Structures are given as structure tokens and as C-alpha cells.
């Protein structure tokens, strides 16, 4: 490592999880998952309006073929991950717990693909053309929020943007998908960054990577100069990968409360999204697969796999040679902000970064005790809130007090609930208050 390690950047507050679990899978090179017989591709894979399904039962589809068209600006196209026959539109368990619509495709075993779209010479091309290609290829934020990428890349004209930040922090314990991507395909990440900055018309590009991925930092640094990208090593601290904290760590700017990154003149994209943008522009292929970490203490051989979207989770677990004991929890995403699942039939989506299986011992619901005012939640809150005081107000039903004390700024990162020695459900209280306050505001 060279001079850049001297100043490792970070934000104020936050927590340091004692058990990272990344060692389970960070050394495992990404493997391409074999073709499955059946995929259930969720329709609503983007924030905003779900796309409109344009195939019906019995239709023959090819890989990369459009199966659902964006139904507005804040919506994203959806493509078939496989060639075969559409069996129907079925209901599957959704990643967030609500049943979801999915297109069930039975593979014909041939894996025939449509010819890729023509390559665009992104260094010369019109930014509009690049943006249209990204929208056509159905890119969404692959870090978790799955906001359509073309929307994030077209800020309103009155907003001045001067910085593009790629989020390679991967601050969630256990997840290593982004780590492997940066290590194995740095050119795609860097080209994606350059493409996005061309769309935005800016030349200040940063990639923030936590210091527990030194090898990835080195690989990126070696190749970054020709793309005009600066690699920023970040302290290992949760939630380093949260947009607002990342912007603060790298640029020193505060995103104003209730604002978006563009209010701090920044656009933040996940590095997976950047690599997908490079694929879309250079290779001309839409987003139908991504690297997913299949890991956890009970997984037999944790690792990273390139999974097509719509892969049922049970098949991903099969790739990892099953489990050593019956798991107590199945989580899509990381352990801090991921969603626990009821069934192994839930399919992966564009934003599924990890499939995490915890043991039954780890899945207990902790009995919570009294708040002893230790202040660890206050020290840990990246938004500088006072979770203990908020929770006290919420427990007595005083959502108005919670609102006055800025509960709506809560990121729901879970740092407070993680550190609480009394195991109080702090972030859970905040979620409830936020939902309740939103409901009351809608009523008015």
C-alpha cells in the first residue's frame, strides 16, 4: 500500500462489529452457477413503479429478451435470464416478506441468447445515448435499494453535481460479493465509473473501499489512473456504505436532513451497478445476473456465485453444498439490514448481494431489558440521533416527540440495536414510528 493508506477516511460515530464473517467467503473466487431447469424472476425488482409484463404463459423467450417493460420514468426494464418457455405469472415469496409476482420460466437447456446490443464507444458517445442504453438494460442500484440507475444518473438540471462516488465499502458483515467483483473485474468497475461520470458530465470520481479489502484497493489503484478514478481507502466501520456517511467520509459534506446525495452535489452508485453499466455499454448485455455471496456459519462451503436473477435460494444453497445443520435464519442481504425469509423458495433479484444462513443459536429473539442509559446507541448512531430517548418516547406512544427528535432521519442501519447491552429493539421502534408518522401525515 502506498501513500493513500496514510489517511484512512471515515465518518463520525458508527460501530465496529466484532464478528465480520467475511473470512468465510472472501477467498472464494466467483463461480458461474450452472443452468437451472426453472427460474422465477420477480417482476418488481426496482424501487418505484414495477415494470409491465409483456410475456404470457406459453411464450418462448431467449436469454436477454425483454419480459417486462418499464412503466414510467422511475421504473426499470426486466429481461429473461435464460432461454425457454414462460410457464406463467406466479406468486412467490417476496424478499421483503410480502408475496410478489414472478415470471416463471422453464429452461429449454439451450441457453440461447439474443445477439447483444452494439458496443458503444463510451469515450466518444453522446451522454444521452449512454443513459438510454443503461435504461434499456434495466439497471438498478445493486447495493440494496434497487433505485433505477438511469434516474439517479439524470439529476434535475437545477442541481449542480460535481462528484461521483462508487460505493465499494461493503460494510455489512459476511458479504463479499462486491469484494470479489472489484478483485476479479476491476476494469468493468472502473469503466462503469467512467461511463457514469461521462453521463453526469463530471470528472471527480471516487471509489470508496473499506480497509478490510486491501487486495481490492491495490488492484483498483493499479488500474485506476487511466480511467481518472481515485480510490479512497475507508476505515472498517459500520455503516460506512450508507450513502450519506460515504459522502461525508470522502468529501466532508453533509447531505442536508431529508435531502438526497445530489443536495451535496454527489451521485453515489454501487460498484456492482457500475460493472453492470460497463457490461451494458461495452458488451451490450442487459442485467440478468450478478455475484451473490452464499455464506453463513451453517453453510457447508461458503462462496461467491454469479447467479442469474430469479434463482430460487434453495438452488443457491445447493451450489454451496448444502448446510451443516438446519439453519435458524435465512437472510437476503447482510445481517445488519437484510431481510429474514420464511421460505427457501424466495428468488434472488438484481439487488440480492448475499444469501446468509445463520444457525438456530444465532436466530434467537433476545429478551430485552431496561435501558441503562449507557449511551452506546448515541455513540453508534451515524445520524447522531439519540435512539434510547427516541425509543422511550415511542414506547409511550409519543410519536410527536419522536418526530421532533428527528426519528424520520433514521437510516434504519441497526447500529443502535446492535450495540445495545440491554438488547432493546431500538431500530425496530424507529421503523414503527416512521411508518406511523408517515401514515398520520398521509391522513392529513
Amino acid at each position, binding site marked *: 500500500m502506498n501513500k493513500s493508506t496514510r489517511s484512512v477516511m471515515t465518518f463520525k460515530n458508527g460501530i465496529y462489529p466484532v464478528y465480520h464473517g467475511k473470512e468465510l467467503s472472501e477467498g472464494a473466487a466467483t463461480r458461474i452457477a450452472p443452468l437451472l431447469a426453472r427460474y422465477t424472476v420477480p417482476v418488481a425488482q426496482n424501487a418505484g413503479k414495477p415494470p409491465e409484463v409483456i410475456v404470457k404463459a406459453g411464450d418462448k423467450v431467449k436469454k436477454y429478451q425483454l419480459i417486462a417493460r418499464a412503466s414510467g420514468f422511475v421504473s426499470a426494464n426486466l429481461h429473461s435470464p435464460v432461454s425457454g418457455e414462460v410457464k406463467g405469472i406466479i406468486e412467490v415469496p417476496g424478499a421483503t416478506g410480502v408475496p410478489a409476482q414472478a415470471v416463471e420460466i422453464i429452461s429449454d437447456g439451450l441457453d440461447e441468447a439474443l445477439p447483444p446490443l452494439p458496443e458503444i464507444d463510451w469515450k466518444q458517445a453522446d451522454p444521452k445515448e449512454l443513459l438510454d442504453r443503461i435504461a434499456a438494460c434495466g439497471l438498478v442500484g445493486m447495493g440494496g435499494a434497487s433505485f433505477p440507475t438511469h434516474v439517479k444518473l439524470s439529476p434535475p438540471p437545477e442541481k449542480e453535481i460535481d462528484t461521483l462516488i462508487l460505493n465499494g465499502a461493503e460494510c455489512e458483515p459476511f458479504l463479499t460479493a462486491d469484494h470479489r467483483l472489484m478483485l476479479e473485474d476491476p476494469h468493468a468497475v472502473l469503466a462503469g465509473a467512467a461511463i457514469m461520470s461521462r453521463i453526469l458530465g463530471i470528472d471527480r470520481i471516487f471509489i470508496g473501499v473499506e480497509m478490510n479489502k486491501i487486495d481490492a484497493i491495490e488492484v483498483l489503484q493499479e488500474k485506476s489512473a487511466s480511467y481518472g478514478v481515485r480510490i479512497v481507502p475507508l476505515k472498517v466501520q459500520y455503516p460506512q456504505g450508507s450513502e450519506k456517511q460515504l459522502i461525508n467520509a470522502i468529501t466532508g459534506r453533509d447531505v442536508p*436532513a431529508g435531502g438526497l446525495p445530489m443536495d451535496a452535489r454527489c451521485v453515489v452508485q454501487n460498484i456492482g451497478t457500475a460493472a453492470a453499466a460497463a457490461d451494458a455499454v461495452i458488451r451490450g448485455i442487459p442485467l440478468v445476473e450478478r455475484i451473490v455471496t452464499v455464506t453463513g456459519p451453517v453453510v457447508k462451503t461458503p462462496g461467491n456465485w454469479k447467479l442469474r436473477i430469479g434463482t430460487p435460494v434453495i438452488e443457491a444453497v445447493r*451450489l454451496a453444498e448444502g448446510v451443516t445443520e438446519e439453519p435458524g435464519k435465512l437472510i437476503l442481504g447482510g445481517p445488519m439490514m437484510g431481510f*429474514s425469509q420464511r421460505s427457501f423458495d424466495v428468488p434472488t433479484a438484481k439487488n440480492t448481494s448475499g444469501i446468509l444462513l445463520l444457525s438456530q443459536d444465532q436466530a434467537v429473539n433476545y429478551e430485552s431489558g431496561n435501558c441503562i442509559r449507557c449511551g452506546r446507541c448515541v455513540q453508534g448512531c451515524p445520524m447522531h440521533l439519540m435512539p434510547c430517548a427516541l425509543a422511550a418516547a415511542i414506547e409511550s406512544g409519543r410519536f410527536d416527540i419522536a418526530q421532533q427528535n428527528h426519528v424520520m432521519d433514521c437510516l434504519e442501519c441497526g447500529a443502535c440495536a446492535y450495540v445495545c447491552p440491554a438488547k432493546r429493539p431500538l431500530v425496530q421502534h424507529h421503523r414503527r414510528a416512521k411508518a406511523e408518522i408517515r401514515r398520520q401525515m398521509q391522513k392529513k
Partner: protein
Amino acid sequence: MEENSNSSTSDILMPTGESLVVSSSPHVVSPERTSRIMGKVLLALLFPLAGGIWFFGWKAAWVVFLTTVFCVAAEALWCKLAGRPVRKTVLDGSAAVTGVILGLNCPPEVPFYVPLIGAVLAIWIGKQVFGGLGYNPFNPAVVARVGLLIALPAAMTVWTPPRGMDKDFPEIKEFRTPVDAVTCATPLSIAGNTPKIKTNDFFAHENFKKIDNPELLEKYFWGVKGGCIGEVCVPAILIGAVLLVCFNLINWRVPVCYVGTVAVITGVVNYFYPGVTPSPLFHLLTGGLLFAACFMATDMVTCPITGTGCIFFAMGCGIITSVIRIWGNYPEGVSFAILFMNALVPLIDKWSGTRPFGYVLKRKGEV
């Protein structure tokens, strides 16, 4: 990247999903528990306790043992009568911590009913009437100490001479009470009984010389002085305090600002009126100041949450302590100071809340 070799599907164990738990994130939590925090506090308290036992003998251990047992018993009894979970409440360790702190705040030889009454005061009046752990506005051990001091002043001011006093203080008559040979006075009570000289002349400078000179201050530092069990041995208190800070159990601002404020105020008064109060070092090394600043004012439940709040709180404690010590009737003001500032904590918390992220647009050092 390579193709997955996935041939032997027969003998792998696949999950059935039968025992999946669904809950809201986060799905992992830190290993820290309330009981562990209390355990670490107890560990740190062992040092002043060991100091007390060294200087006062096993009688001191017996007192601390009694207060601890009575506190835990009082907690269990209350939970039993109130229908709260007994086992869970007792095992969180907070009653034991209160008991040990209360014991360390007692003179080395108190009759058994003092720990008993103290425990009832601490646990019932100081803590459980407010709703138990975390809801008490006042530090239970301080409540009990003040209660005992007011209710049983005689029992609470019988001071045993520490080990080494006979040898080291042959010439100082003041430390010996004339009526019997088994008790002694504390430096603070002697200072309190010394008539004040409100001038700045030779006599004023000599006023406290007998109890406030470098040779004696060194003795005070090691613990050769009359006092409560936990407050005599300064090195042991400091080791315990360092442990607490290292374990992230106390806010270092509280002891530093508390002791600092007392030092500044007594220093200023001592500089202009040396006949009114002894030197700041004397105030630091005698009485319960250091022990209280490290172990009692810092109680998580009853001190402010933010660092700024802790500074205000500790400075308030320091001011009240100094005022009582210099001008008050009581030789010692630490307990009253903490109790008074405990009452202000909700207000301090309100004034010193955090500023949420994103409420100031620009900062220094922005790129």
C-alpha cells in the same frame, strides 16, 4: 471464474426451512450485555475494595459483603412482592454493584444494621420505587449514603485508624480522638473543625499546615488516612477508574471535569485565603472525592448521555462539592453534590442533545 462442478448432489444436507425465524433486522447483535457491564464494574470495584481491606483489615471486607448481600436480598424481596421476575432482575448484577459501592462508602467498622438499612434505602427508596434499573433518577448508593449520614450520623462517622497510622503519625494528636484509642478523625473533619482565618498572612498559611504538608499528602495518596473503606487508597481507585474507561463503561469527562473543577475552585480560594481551605491537592487526596468522581458520579443511569452533558454535570458536581467543603457545615459534600446534580440530569440531557447529521450545510475542511 469457472463452471461450478456440482455433481454429487445425493449426499448433501439441504435445509428444509422448518425452523426459520423471521424478524426485523439487525440479525446479529454485539456480545455486550447489561450483566457483563455490571460484571466489569464489579471487577473495577475490586481494586478500591482491596485497598480498603489492606488498610482496614477483613472487617472492611465484612462490611462490603453485608451491604452486597443485603442489597441483592432487598432487590429479590422487592421483585418477589411486586411480582417481577426475581432471577432476571438479580442476575443483571446492578444490585450487587450498588451493594459494593454502598459498602465502600461505609466506615470500616459499622454495626450490622447500617448495611441493612442502607441496602433497603438504596434498593427500595433509591431504585425500585422509580421502576427499577434504569428508571432511578438518583444513584441508589448515594441515596443510601446520604440517608445513613443523616439518620445515623454517629455510626457513619466512627473512623478506624488505617494500617500504618500509629507508626507514621505519632506526633499528630489531632488524628486521635482523646476518648478512646480505637478511632481516629479524617483529615477532612479536622479541616472542617479548624477555625477559618480570613486573612492572607503567616497565621493563615500555618492554619492547615498540620494536616496539609507534602509528607502527609504522600501518606494520604497511598491511603494512610481515616475514611470510608473505598475512598482511602488513591492508587487503587485510579487503577479501577482506568479499567472503567478502558472498558468504555464511564465517560472520562466526568471524573476529569469533576476533580478539575474542585481543584480549580479550592485552588483559587486557597491562593487568596490559605486560612480558609487547604490546598487543592489536599482536597483531591482526602475524603470521597476521587472515589465518587470515578465510581459514583459516573453511574450510567444517573449521569447525562452525551459528552457535553457530562461536562456540565461534572462541573456542577465540582462546584457544589467545593462550596460545601469550603463553606458548608459538613466536612464532605460529595454525596450531596452528586444527588443534586442527578436531579438536574433530565434538564442537562435536554440542553445537550446531539445535533443530528445533516442540519448544518457546510463544514470546515470540505473538499
